[in-house]
């Protein structure tokens, strides 16, 4: 393979890796928006808390000399549980009391929650960068493709794909998944069928937070360091991905994440790495201007 092509594939694969993480986080934005029409600005902080949980758990387990894959698995599981608890609680204290308030109120509450969590982690942990251990092992059988995609990236891509497929099946085939879609489309009717909208909303926050937790641990392991502010940029990127795909659309969030990750990486690789973020937000501005419903977004359904 010539080096031009190799460079291109390198960029694409690391773009897909980043994009998978954006997608995992974007799903939380889009699912919550789909069901209560709220942009949950605190969602990026959930991802950050996931990364911190992973760091702490990995640190503890490292002391006892666990094998790497075991550490990764336990770190991810702990982050999922911890973040799910955060997501559940945030909805209960910051959004549920405002369920019938004007739309701006929960939005402001979300921003407040985001600032609160950032500062809380900064106080409880530190405001400095912390090194994050490499939790994803290098698989030897992936050596042959290591010149275009690292073992870490393959693991992230595969894990994200598995998680998203599982989510897709859950939403499409289970009773709970159908109830979630029904509640998103018409909450009053869902209630008339005996669906408990409050618990469906809680489940939505729990799932969204769990996905962000997975993203947090995986990407922290790839980046090698974290601080209390990583949630802001990642949250904005994932939000961009959700809008790009069509906010409220689950396949849209997955697709939007991948497209954003690749575009951003190609811009960084061929223009300048300073442009990665600029490019991401340029996409946000363009989408909001020219196609606010996003790629997969449907025109608002007419309610008879």
């Amino acid at each position: 393979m010539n080096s031009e092509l190799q460079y291109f594939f390198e960029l694409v694969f690391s773009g897909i890796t980043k994009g998978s993480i954006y997608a995992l986080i974007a799903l939380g934005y889009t699912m919550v928006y789909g069901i209560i029409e709220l942009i949950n600005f605190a969602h990026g902080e959930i991802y950050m808390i996931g990364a911190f949980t992973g760091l702490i758990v990995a640190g503890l387990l490292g002391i006892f000399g666990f094998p790497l894959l075991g550490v990764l698995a336990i770190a991810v599981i702990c982050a999922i549980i911890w973040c799910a608890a955060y997501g559940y609680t945030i909805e209960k204290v910051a959004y549920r009391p405002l369920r019938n308030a004007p739309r701006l109120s929960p939005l402001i509450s979300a921003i407040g929650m985001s600032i609160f969590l950032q500062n809380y982690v900064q106080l409880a942990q530190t405001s400095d960068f912390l090194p994050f251990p490499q939790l994803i092992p290098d698989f030897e059988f992936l050596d042959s493709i290591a010149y275009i995609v690292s073992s870490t990236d393959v693991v992230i891509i595969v894990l994200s794909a598995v998680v998203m497929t599982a989510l897709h099946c859950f939403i499409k085939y289970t009773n709970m998944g159908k109830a979630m879609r029904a509640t998103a489309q018409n909450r009053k009717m869902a209630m008339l069928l005996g669906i408990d909208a409050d618990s469906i909303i809680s489940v939505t926050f729990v799932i969204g937070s769990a996905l962000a937790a997975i993203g947090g641990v995986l990407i922290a392991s790839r980046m090698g360091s974290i601080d209390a502010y990583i949630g802001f940029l990642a949250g904005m990127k994932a939000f961009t991905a959700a809008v790009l795909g069509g906010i409220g659309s689950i396949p849209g969030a997955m697709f939007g994440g991948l497209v954003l990750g690749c575009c951003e990486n190609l811009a960084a690789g061929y223009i300048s790495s300073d442009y990665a973020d600029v490019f991401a937000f340029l996409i946000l501005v363009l989408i909001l201007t020219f196609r606010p419903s996003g790629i997969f977004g449907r025109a608002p359904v007419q309610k008879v």
Partner: protein
Amino acid sequence: MLRLRNVDTFYGNIQALRGICLNIEEGEIVTLIGANGAGKTTTLMTICGVIPPLSGTIRFRDKPIQHLPPNKIVRMGISQVPEGRLIFPQLTVMENLELGAYLRTDKENIGKDLDYIFSLFPILAERAKQQGGTLSGGEQQMLAISRALMGRPTLLLLDEPSLGLAPIIIRQIFDIIKKVNEDGTTVFLVEQNANQALKIAHRGYVIENGAIMLEDSAERLLKNEAVRKAYLGI
């Protein structure tokens, strides 16, 4: 079976129901007729717990239900076909039907009930894989009724099922309502289309400005001078 006593319901400070009293006995078709804005939809939403009453009691099979959340009320056997049908537009017809059975624990009987529904409305079997939003108005009404029946209700509430439908479809829908009643489901039918409703009902109530003005057998209401003037356009 269902008893409302002095039910008052508010939207903020606006009082929509004023001391509503009504009874529905097992096996009946009871209709509630009234003009636009009289409080018919509010009555049904109050019964289902979506807009709980501020005061008064609602008893279903002698149990007070006025403070229960909708899911508990549905579980007791009350299903509603709401105004405007409220089909889930991006779910398939089959998924809409399955959600009608959301609370049921006797999953093994659901297949049998699907067969029953497809015998009532064969068109729904043809459309099973289509999205709900692609159905015509009449088909959506059939789906809304079927979805409610999938909950195996003992009391079926219908909010203006004839609204916006062609006369031939209306007749078909009313025939089905009658059949469903004959098959053992008690029906509470809210209508502006008083003529059709009174023809299939046993008894009727007339609601005006949130209060019950008249109560009688359907036959006598059909002959009642005031009712004929106000609701039958005669």
